[in-house]
């Protein structure tokens, strides 16, 4: 007795639509991972690179747009009240601000990095900082500069390009040296 049967290939393939959707989802997911990795491994803003415009809301509620300061020199200092080296440079930063602010050609911005407001305000009062200081809300500014810690100081030239970076406490001489050079340049 023989058993005859039709061979069954058994290959009921998936619908092309499902395959296409799967591929689109997979590619989209890979794209997102790629974007995340690119962002994670992107280096900090380098000297000569254009610094994107940003805004800082001060502790007093004033909103400062760097876009409004085009053609001026901008000194951006990242600090925190829990950071001891920030205390070393605070007085020098205030002195530098006192030296330049009357000319109206230099803007100092103190960006308070992941801090609590009462302690940050106490820090500002303790060192008598009079230049605009405000919290880095949602850490947007520090992420843009890709800072590695505090204190860090960035100086942006008249054309909006990064001219100076200091990781660690800065000094009056250091700031003056850079700012004077940048002020001497034509916009």
């Amino acid at each position: 007795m023989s058993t005859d049967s039709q061979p069954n290939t058994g290959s009921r393939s998936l619908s092309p639509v499902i395959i296409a959707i799967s591929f689109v989802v997979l590619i989209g997911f890979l794209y997102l991972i790629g974007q995340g990795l690119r962002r994670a491994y992107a280096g900090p803003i380098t000297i000569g690179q254009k610094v994107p415009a940003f805004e800082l809301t001060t502790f007093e509620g004033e909103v400062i747009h760097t876009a409004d300061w085009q053609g001026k020199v901008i000194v951006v200092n990242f600090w925190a009240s829990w950071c001891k080296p920030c205390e070393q440079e605070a007085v020098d930063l205030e002195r530098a601000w006192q030296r330049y602010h009357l000319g109206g050609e230099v803007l100092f911005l103190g960006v308070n990095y992941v801090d609590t407001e009462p302690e940050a305000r106490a820090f500002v009062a303790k060192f008598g900082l009079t230049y605009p200081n405000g919290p880095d809300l949602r850490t947007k500014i520090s992420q843009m500069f890709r800072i590695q810690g505090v204190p860090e100081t960035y100086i942006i030239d008249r054309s909006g390009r990064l001219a100076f970076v200091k990781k660690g406490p800065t000094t009056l001489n250091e700031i003056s040296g850079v700012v004077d050079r940048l002020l001497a340049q034509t916009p």
Partner: protein
Amino acid sequence: MSGIGLRKLRFSWQYLVWGVLLVLMVGGAMVQSVRAQQPTPSDDEVNAIAKTMYCPVCENVPLDVCPTQACAQWRELIRQKLAEGWTEQQIKDYFVAQYGDRVLGEPPRRGLHWLVYVLPPLSFLAGVLILVNVFRNMRRAKPVIASPDSKVKASSSWDDPYAQQLEEELRRRERGE
């Protein structure tokens, strides 16, 4: 009404006004003292919220066990907000507004963060569907029992000249040639 009666009435009114003022002052003082005696939130209450958040400075360290000064300040801030009557959600929202989403132990359920919640179950479901499909196909694929006399021609092996040669050889051996 006589003069004595009027004096008595005025006298009692003065008592009444002073009495009301006294009651108000004592009542106010009691309310103040009750408010002042409101207990400050305990470490456990603070840590219950802090453990669902992460230190924004030191990566991958929950806020409740983070030893830095910054974290101590944030825990103190949580205590302060709790004392002011803020809810856990309000405190978390405040921290997110200040330091960004990365302070949260769980990604917020909005925007691209939804992928974190949607993709794993979707991938699991897709895997189950693929497995079901494979098993169903395996069960459907019945074995082909071929005999030398069968006239099965549909199999792809019959199109293969080597397979035909092999079949012919086997048949010849069976016949004892």
